[in-house]
C-alpha cells in the first residue's frame, strides 16, 4: 500500500494547539511553582498594613463547603450544610457564648422553677421576622408542636419528648414543664424557632419554605442554586446589630483539592484545611500574606470501641493493657501531623465537664504484656502471637471508607499491637454497610469511630445500659451500674457545681473502665482571607461573632 504524499492541510490545523498544550504541561511539571517556595520560619503576619479601627459595612464572605444543603426547615435540617445555613438565618431561644456558657438569644432571660421541673423563658420584645412580622411566644409554641408531631420526621424529638406541657403565659413569656427534672433540656432550646404565621397549616415536608426560609437571624435568605451556591444578605434590622459583611455566599465545591485552588485564587474566603494543608502546603510567604490561619480544638473525639459482648474484651484488665500498648502521641504525630491532642474521655478540655485530674496513661508496652499475662494471654507456642486456651489473640478493626485518618490510625495500632503479640486485621467498609450490617447489629470485635459532641455533657444515649437495642448508640453493650446512676443524676441536676462533680466522676470511671480506647481530639484548622478583621478565636471556634467581622473599605472585594 502506498502512502499518499499530498498533505491534507485543512485537517491538521487543529493539531499544533494540542502539541502546544502538551509542551506547556511538560514545562509546567518540571519548573518550580512561583508561589511554592518555602518561606523562612520568621513569619509574615497576615496583614501588616495599619487598618482603621472603626468597622465599616460592605463586602461579601464566600465560604467553600463540600456538600449542598438539603432543607432549610430548621427542625428537619440534620446534615451539616443545612444546619450551617440555618444557623445564620434563624435563632434559638438560647445559644452558647465564646466561653461555652449558655446565654439568651431570642430569650432575654430564663428562670428554673419548681425544683428544676419547669423553665420559664422571657423573650425579647424587639425581634421581627425577616418579613416584618413580630416574633412572639406563639412561634415558640408552634415550633415545639411541630417537633413533637408524629408526622414530622424530625431527628430532634428526643429531648422534647421529656416535656409535659408548654404554656404560653403572654406574648413574651413561655413556661415549659418537664415530666421530671431534665437539665439537658435547657440546651435543647438552642433549637431554631420557626415562624408560625408562615408555616401554620403547611406540610413541613413539602413546603417551599424549605428552599425559601424566613427567620429572625443576622442573614436573610436570598437565593439557592442547587449544587452550586446559596446566597444570603445581611439583615439590617437584626436585633443585635446589622452585620458588617453585606453578603454571605455559600459555595458548593465537592472536591477538596479544587477548593484549595479556589482559596488560593480568591474564589473563596474561608475553608477548613487538612493537617497536611495546614502544616505543609500553606507554609508559604504567599499564603501567609493572603490568609490568616486558625487552629482551635474541635468538639469531638476519635476512639476504638470494643464489643463488650466479645469474650476477649469483657476482661477490663485486657482493655487497660491495650490502652498501654498504643501510643496516642504517635498517632497524633503520624496521622494528624501533630494537629490534635490526646483524648482522656467523653469530655473535651474546653467543656466544664472535663476532669483535669484524669491524665492519659503512658505508652508502656512492657506493662501491657505483663497485664495481658495476668489475664492468661501469653505466647506458649512461641509463634510470636499471644494465646490462651489454644487460640491466639486476634481481632479485626472495622472502620468506614473515605476517612483516611481512621484508616491510618488503625494501621498504626495494628503495628503497635503486633509488637506485644496481638494480631489485628483491618477492614474498611462503605459507611451505610458499616453502620447497618456491623455497628447496629453488633457484628464487630472493635471499630474506630468518632463522636461529634454538643456543648451539653449528657451522654446517656452513649453509655447507659438501657441504650443497647439495635440502632441505639450504646452499640458496645456497656453496662456499669455506677455510670447508669450518675447519668440519670446528671440529667436531674441543674446546679452547675453539682453537675460538674457528677460528670467529672463519669469521666474518671470511663477512662479507668476503658469501654473505648480514647484516642485523640483533632484540631479544627481553618484559613480565612486576611482582609477580614475582628476574628477572635475562642473555645467554640471563630464563627460565633461573625456579625462583628468586617473589611476595611480599601480592601473590599465585592460591591453591591
Amino acid at each position, binding site marked *: 500500500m502506498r*502512502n499518499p504524499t499530498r498533505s491534507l492541510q485543512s485537517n491538521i490545523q487543529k493539531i499544533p494547539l494540542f502539541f502546544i498544550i502538551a509542551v506547556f504541561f511538560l514545562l*509546567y511539571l518540571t519548573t518550580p511553582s512561583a508561589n511554592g517556595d518555602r518561606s523562612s520560619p520568621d513569619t509574615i503576619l497576615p496583614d501588616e498594613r495599619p487598618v482603621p479601627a472603626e468597622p465599616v459595612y460592605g463586602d461579601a464572605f464566600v465560604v467553600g463547603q463540600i456538600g449542598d444543603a438539603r432543607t432549610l426547615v430548621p427542625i428537619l435540617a*440534620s446534615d451539616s450544610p443545612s444546619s450551617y445555613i440555618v444557623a445564620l438565618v434563624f435563632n434559638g431561644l438560647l445559644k452558647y457564648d465564646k466561653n461555652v456558657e449558655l446565654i439568651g438569644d431570642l430569650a432575654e432571660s430564663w428562670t428554673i422553677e419548681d425544683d428544676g421541673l419547669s423553665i420559664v423563658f422571657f423573650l425579647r420584645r424587639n425581634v421581627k421576622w425577616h418579613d416584618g412580622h413580630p416574633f412572639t411566644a406563639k412561634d415558640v409554641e408552634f415550633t415545639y408542636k411541630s417537633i413533637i408531631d408524629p408526622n414530622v420526621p424530625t431527628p430532634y424529638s*428526643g429531648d422534647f419528648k421529656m416535656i409535659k406541657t408548654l404554656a404560653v403565659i403572654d406574648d413574651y413569656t413561655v413556661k415549659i414543664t418537664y415530666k421530671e427534672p431534665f437539665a439537658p433540656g435547657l440546651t435543647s432550646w438552642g433549637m431554631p424557632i420557626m415562624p408560625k404565621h408562615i408555616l401554620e397549616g403547611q406540610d413541613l415536608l413539602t413546603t417551599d419554605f424549605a*428552599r425559601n426560609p424566613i427567620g429572625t437571624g443576622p442573614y436573610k435568605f436570598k437565593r439557592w442554586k442547587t449544587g452550586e451556591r446559596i446566597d444570603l444578605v445581611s439583615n439590617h434590622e437584626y436585633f443585635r446589630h446589622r452585620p458588617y459583611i453585606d453578603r454571605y455566599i455559600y459555595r458548593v465545591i465537592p472536591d477538596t483539592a479544587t477548593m484549595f485552588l479556589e482559596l488560593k485564587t480568591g474564589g473563596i474566603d474561608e475553608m477548613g484545611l487538612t493537617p497536611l494543608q495546614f502544616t505543609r502546603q500553606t507554609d508559604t510567604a504567599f499564603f501567609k500574606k493572603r490568609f490568616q490561619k486558625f487552629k482551635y480544638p474541635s468538639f469531638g473525639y476519635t476512639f476504638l470501641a470494643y464489643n463488650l459482648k466479645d469474650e476477649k474484651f469483657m476482661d477490663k484488665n485486657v482493655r487497660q493493657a491495650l490502652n498501654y500498648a498504643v501510643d496516642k502521641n504517635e498517632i497524633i504525630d503520624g496521622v494528624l501531623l501533630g494537629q490534635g491532642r490526646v483524648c482522656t474521655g467523653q469530655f473535651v478540655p474546653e467543656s466544664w465537664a472535663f476532669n483535669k485530674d484524669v491524665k492519659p496513661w503512658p505508652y508502656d508496652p512492657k506493662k501491657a504484656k505483663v497485664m495481658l499475662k495476668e489475664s492468661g494471654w501469653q505466647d506458649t507456642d512461641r509463634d510470636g502471637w499471644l494465646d490462651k486456651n489454644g487460640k491466639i489473640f486476634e481481632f479485626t478493626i472495622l472502620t468506614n471508607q473515605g476517612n483516611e485518618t481512621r484508616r491510618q490510625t488503625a494501621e498504626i495500632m495494628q503495628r503497635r499491637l503486633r509488637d506485644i503479640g496481638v494480631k489485628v486485621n483491618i477492614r474498611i467498609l462503605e459507611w*451505610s454497610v458499616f453502620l447497618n450490617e456491623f455497628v447496629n447489629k453488633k457484628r464487630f470485635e472493635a471499630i474506630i469511630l468518632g463522636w461529634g459532641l454538643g456543648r451539653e455533657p449528657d451522654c446517656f444515649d452513649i453509655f447507659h445500659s438501657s441504650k443497647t437495642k439495635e440502632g441505639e448508640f450504646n452499640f458496645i453493650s456497656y453496662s456499669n451500674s455506677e455510670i447508669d446512676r450518675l447519668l440519670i443524676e446528671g440529667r436531674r441536676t441543674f446546679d452547675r457545681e453539682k453537675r460538674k462533680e457528677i460528670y467529672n466522676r463519669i469521666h474518671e470511671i470511663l477512662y479507668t473502665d476503658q469501654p473505648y480506647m480514647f484516642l485523640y481530639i483533632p484540631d479544627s484548622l481553618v484559613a480565612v482571607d486576611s482582609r477580614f478583621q475582628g476574628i477572635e478565636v475562642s473555645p467554640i471556634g471563630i464563627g460565633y461573632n461573625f456579625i462583628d467581622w468586617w473589611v476595611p473599605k480599601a480592601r473590599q472585594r465585592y460591591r453591591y
Partner: protein
Amino acid sequence: MLKYILKRLLHMIPILLGITLISFAVIHLAPGKPTDLMLQLNPKVDFEAREKLNRIYGFDKPLYVQYLNWMKKLSRLDFGKSFIDNRPVIEKIRERLPITIFINVLAMTTIFLLSIPIGIKSAVRRGSVFDKTTTVFVFLGFAAPSFWLGLLLMSFFGVRLGILPVSGIASLDFENFSTLGKIADVSKHLILPVAVASIGGLAGVSRYMRQSMLNVISQDYIKTARAKGLPEKTVIYKHALRNALLPIITILGLSIPGLISGSVILETIFSIPGMGRLMVESVFTRDYNVIMAGLVISALLTLIGNLIADIAYVHADPRIRYKR
C-alpha cells in the same frame, strides 16, 4: 420503515420493565436506607425517631410492595420524591440535566471534530511521524486520569496564569454582567471542563476512525478509484470516508446515554452541579427514587440511541435493509 420503528419501540417496553425490576432489586439489596445518612451518628437522634422516619417513608413494607407502589407512580410518569429533601425527583433532574447535556454535547462535538480528521490522516499516512506522534499523545490523554489532568490544568491556567476560573460555571457577580459578558463568563468557565472531557474520548474515536479507514482503503474499489486516476482527495473523502464512517455512527449512538449520566469525576472536580454528581450523591445517601429515575432515563436513552444508530445505518449504507 414506520412499522419497523413502531415494532422496535414496542419491544422496548418489556426490556424497560426488566431493567426497572433488576435495578430496584439491586439497589435495595445494598444495605442501608435513605434514613441512615439523614441522621448520621448523632447521639441526639434516638431510635424511635429513626423508626418514625422509616414508617413515614414506607421502608418498613416488604420489598415487592415498595416496587409495586413505585411502578404505580411511574405509570403516571411520576418519579416520586427525593427522600433527602422531599422535592419531586423530576424537578431535581430538570435542574441538573441542562448543564450536563450542554457540556457533553460540546465535548462530543470536540471529540468528533478532532478525532475524525486525526483518524483519517493517521490511516492515510499510516506509519508516518504524524501517525506515531498523534498515537502517543492521544493515548497519553486517554491514560491520564481526568481528575489529575483537571487539577493540573486548573492549577496552571487558574492559579499560575490566572487567566481561567478554577471551578464552577459562573462568576460570583454573574448577575451584574451584560448578556455578552454572561456568555463570555460561562464560556470561560467551560473551557477547562470541556477540554478535560474531550481529551479522554479522543483516543477511542480516533482509533476507531483510523482502523475503519484502513480497512476501507485496502478494498478493491478504492484501488479501482485510484486506477481511474481520481484525485486522492476525491478517493479518500468521497469514496472511502462514507464507508469508513459506519462504525463511528455506532459509537455516536452508544454515546447518547452518556449525555445524560454525565461524568462524576469531571463534575466533582470542576464543581459543576450536573447529573453525574446527583446520581452519585443519591447512591451514597440511598435516595432510591432519584437513583431509579436516573436509571430509567438512561436505560431509555440507551435503547433509543441504539434505534437511532440502526436507522442511521440505513441512510449511510445502502447495503443494509430492514427485514421482517
